[in-house]
């Protein structure tokens, strides 16, 4: 584990609302290695976006509250840093791309102004140099006519172009880690593929690690090295991409995979909805929607992440507890679609 | 958001049903309301004609209680009739809706206190002048301090209450003291409540009426009429009403009637804009199209569908407009440019201004009442806006 770039231990993010405290992320561990792409997968409301934004504390506080046992980046605990030190990490070593390019750019500044700000934030470049760098970055992310685009306002660009601008901004200081939160969800399908290609390209060029947040298992299959499956603020299952797809072990992961076209029932869906984040139920968070639910699933805490065959593949499910028999879950991995589709789907974050 | 509050909305706007059902014929509850209002207005008219033709000028209209009905009083009667038939009566007839309002309203404690205070001011202003004689000048009673306080014996000519150690103490005879010319401040405050309520309610009604009509017509007729009306609104909004009023009182003399008329007739610009934009949005909505395709006449559509829907916006805007009217009135009264025959709070503040260093109460008491009245209108307006703000859902 020494070669991990980012290690997050027991991350908890809560929001104080009028109705009570929302436990958006409730004790989550994950890590990202160097040059590696890790995907966090889950449906809307699973807390994956909040988890990704908690890494560099981008969450508004208040109403948010973030706590973790440790968040180590390149060996140093960034959670024990002062706000000022953390600012040196943000944008310089860890960059973010957000889901909605429409809202992620400030409407009253030119694209160039916003990239220049990112450049100058972490370098001593003069205005002219920073502007040149901005044009260079825009060119790198494949924006047509970067020389003129630099003086345009966000409303003059298309959604895909905006997302390219945001990526350019994220690249300004050549970060070590790129956190991409559903960067393609708000875009047209054709544009989605282009943006995804771009991210993969720059990852190779710059030698970056990527933490990729998505609900789209198709995307996961394409880019991930490792996968973390989240549900209702908890990690259900994690492992390398092959073992997750080959051998999905948690009933939730199985159900998710069943939702992919070409798997099991056509458009099979998971019935029911997420448990209330205000007052999460005892036991496994998925228990209410699980076809294999047992008495012990509704007791105590979320089951620990049990190791599967001594590999890195871990599953938070009582069927995989040491000595338990996971066989009831096997066999009919395709037979999950019996529940009626009811979930409104994604995305709403 | 629009969909899940719709049932409440429909329920809520039942009270501003206007005479919609009249067009369908039949003497339903709603047309009874309109009928009642017309009857009352007719009675006021007869009364007015009687006053105009049969009672000589400067003679009391109703000799028994020495009441010479003024222009403002006439307007106030009409306003009260409208409020009775279109606010109180519907609230009484729809107890379920009234309870719903109360539940919603109760959530905002500041607004509840404000509402209570305004109701008190309104009630006292309505009944008070009938029970209490008009404050009269009585020079020998000048500078009486409020009860529980005292003033140096040098100031009052004659001390009504106890006088001890060279100080004159207040009595319950003049619970809030008297002005330098001996007018009882308690009575002045009560009479001032009437004035404030008249300004707020009559002007409010004028603004609502003109603003809504202009806005709805502009939106519904469209074309040249829309253009001309809205251009006019542009000019009117640029023209500072305060200065216009200064010019007008200079040219035509000052009176409360003039104040209400000028501010009523020139302050509806914003309301008209609001109604217009809201009505334009509404006309796009399906139920309007449905009503039109069902053969409902334009007027009917405006009356029945558009007005009830804009009423919440309009009422909120007017509630927030009233305090500035009260401030203007007080300011003008303070400058001696108000109606000298009307005992408004601003006049009392003005009267006590030069005595403030020893007779602090003369200016302070009406000032405090003015302060709280304005505060109350603001709290209620804010609470209404929070509850009904359409912007919250439309922002990107």
């Amino acid at each position: 584990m020494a070669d991990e770039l980012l290690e997050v231990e027991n991350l908890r993010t809560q929001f104080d609302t009028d109705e009570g405290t929302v436990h958006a992320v409730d004790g989550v561990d994950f890590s990202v290695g160097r040059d590696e792409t890790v995907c966090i997968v889950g449906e809307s409301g699973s807390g994956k976006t909040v988890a990704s934004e908690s890494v560099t504390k981008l969450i508004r506080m208040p109403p948010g509250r973030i706590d973790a046992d440790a968040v180590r980046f390149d060996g140093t605990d960034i959670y024990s840093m002062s706000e000022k030190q953390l600012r040196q990490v943000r944008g310089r070593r860890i960059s973010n791309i957000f889901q909605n390019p429409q809202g992620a750019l400030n409407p009253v500044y030119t694209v160039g102004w916003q990239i220049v700000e990112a450049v100058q934030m972490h370098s001593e470049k003069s205005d002219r140099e920073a502007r040149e760098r901005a044009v260079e970055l825009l060119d790198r992310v494949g924006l047509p006519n970067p020389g003129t685009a630099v003086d345009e306002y966000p409303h003059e660009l298309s959604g895909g172009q905006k997302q390219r601008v945001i990526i350019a901004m994220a690249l300004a200081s050549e970060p070590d880690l790129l956190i991409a939160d559903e960067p393609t969800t708000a875009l047209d399908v054709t544009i989605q593929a282009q943006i995804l290609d771009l991210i993969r390209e720059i990852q190779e060029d710059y030698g970056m690690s990527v933490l990729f947040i998505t609900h789209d298992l198709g995307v996961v299959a394409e880019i991930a090295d490792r996968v973390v499956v989240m549900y209702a603020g908890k990690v259900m299952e994690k492992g390398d991409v092959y073992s997750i797809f080959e051998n999905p072990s948690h009933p939730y992961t199985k159900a998710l995979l069943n939702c992919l076209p070409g798997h099991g029932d056509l458009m099979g869906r998971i019935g029911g909805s997420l448990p209330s984040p205000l007052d999460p139920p005892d036991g496994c968070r998925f228990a209410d929607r699980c076809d294999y639910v047992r008495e012990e699933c509704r007791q105590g805490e979320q089951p620990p992440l049990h190791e599967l065959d001594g590999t890195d593949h871990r599953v938070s499910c009582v069927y995989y507890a040491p000595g338990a028999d996971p066989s009831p879950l096997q066999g009919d991995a395709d037979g999950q679609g019996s529940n009626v589709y009811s979930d409104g789907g994604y995305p709403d974050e | 958001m629009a969909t899940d509050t719709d049932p409440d909305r429909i329920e809520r706007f039942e009270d501003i049903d206007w005479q919609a059902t009249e067009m369908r014929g039949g003497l339903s509850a709603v047309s009874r309301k309109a009928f009642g209002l017309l009857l009352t207005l007719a009675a006021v008219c007869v009364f007015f004609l009687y006053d105009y033709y049969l009672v000589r000028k400067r003679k009391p209209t109703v000799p028994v209680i020495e009441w010479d009905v003024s222009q403002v009083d006439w307007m106030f009667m009409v306003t009260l009739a409208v409020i009775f038939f279109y606010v109180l009566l519907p609230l009484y007839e729809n107890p379920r809706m009234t309870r719903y309002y109360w539940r919603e309203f109760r959530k905002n404690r500041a607004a509840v206190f404000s509402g209570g205070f305004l109701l008190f001011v309104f009630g006292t202003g309505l009944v008070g002048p009938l029970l209490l004689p008009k404050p009269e000048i009585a020079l020998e009673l000048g500078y009486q301090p409020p009860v529980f306080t005292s003033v140096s014996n040098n100031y009052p000519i004659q001390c009504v209450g106890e006088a001890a150690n060279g100080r004159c103490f207040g009595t319950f005879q003049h619970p809030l003291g008297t002005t330098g010319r001996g007018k009882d401040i308690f009575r002045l405050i009560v009479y001032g409540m009437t004035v404030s309520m008249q300004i707020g309610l009559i002007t409010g009604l004028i603004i609502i009426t003109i603003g809504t009509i202009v806005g709805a017509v502009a939106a519904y007729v469209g074309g040249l009429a829309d253009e001309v009306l809205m251009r006019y609104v542009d000019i009117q909004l640029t023209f500072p009403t305060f200065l216009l009023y200064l010019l007008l009182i200079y040219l035509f003399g000052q009176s409360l009637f003039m104040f209400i008329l000028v501010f009523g007739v020139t302050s509806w610009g914003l309301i008209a804009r609001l109604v217009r934009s809201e009505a334009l949005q509404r006309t796009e909505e399906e139920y309007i199209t449905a009503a039109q395709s069902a053969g409902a006449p334009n007027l009917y559509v405006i009356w029945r569908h558009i007005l009830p829907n804009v009423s919440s916006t309009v009422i909120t805007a007017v509630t927030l407009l009233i305090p500035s009217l009260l401030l203007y009135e007080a300011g003008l009264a303070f400058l001696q440019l108000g109606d000298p025959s009307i005992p408004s709070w601003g006049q009392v503040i003005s009267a006590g201004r030069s005595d403030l260093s020893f007779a602090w109460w003369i200016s302070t008491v009406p000032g405090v009442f003015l302060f709280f009245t304005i505060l109350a209108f603001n709290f209620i307006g804010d609470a209404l806006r929070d509850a009904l703000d359409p912007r919250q859902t439309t922002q990107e």
Partner: protein
Amino acid sequence: MSFKTYVAQRLLWTVFATFIIVSITFLLLAASPNAQVSQFAFEAAQNPGTSAEEAREAARQRLGTNQPLWERYTEYMINMFTLNWGYSQSGGGQLVTERILNALPYTALYSVPTTILSVIIGVSIGLYSATNQYSRFDYAATFFAFFGYAIPNFWFGIILLVIFGAWLGWVPIIFQPDVPWLSFEMLKQLILPVIVLVTAQTTGLMRYSRAEALEYVEAEFLKTAKAKGVSSYRVITRHIFRPAAVPLMTILISDLLGLFIASSLLVEVVFSIPGLGRLTFNAILQQDTPLVLSTTLVGVMIAVFGNLLQDISYTVLDPRISYDSRE
């Protein structure tokens, strides 16, 4: 439509609106039952080169000849637009324009610092309140806003004057116009009017800037900025303030216009400052028609051009505005 055409169009509209407004004043003057006033309508139509006495004489003659309304109107309009506003009847035969020019500096004396202070204080408190919503500071600021709005400023003024002028004797009760402008004495006598007006002005600005900034505190682009490593101070000043400034501009100017027009009159009367407001007030008391008319028109013109300025600044500030969609 280009920016230039837009400005030209607005300018034309402003001229047109001015024309209408001046015409209305003429109609009001002509319709006034006050004999002295309607006489003025003729005087104003008279060549202003002649003295007040001559003008009055000529006017009386004209009154008899009953010059057609249309001719009176054209002359009146020409005089008004060429700033031939005649002589003040109460000021010892001074030109009206001269009296206005003499009064203006005194209005500027307190309104310039008031404007600067209330914009700075109001906007920064509003922004801070918005970014720290529901904090104790926010509640205190909201309370202050309600207080400042609800307290009648003339009343607030006289109470301050009694406390600090009469009782404590820290400031003079009557404004001394001949004190040197850049002196401690001047500062002392300006403090109270500025406090009163700043209290009134700040509250509106504060509440509006808070409301506008609240539209942006949850905006996604703030997260982008934060992710770049931008400090929270810079987030507020650059990323929230700038977009919020666009709608704020509208309110700012109309609020400040309110100050010049209504509040200044009250405050100048309370503190006896010989500015434009007091000039208007005295003109009304002394039945000085040319002066009343002119001071009113100056106020109206300030409002009209303030509106023009507001529209233009709006388009300059917001790159998203397309000129065609604005009226």
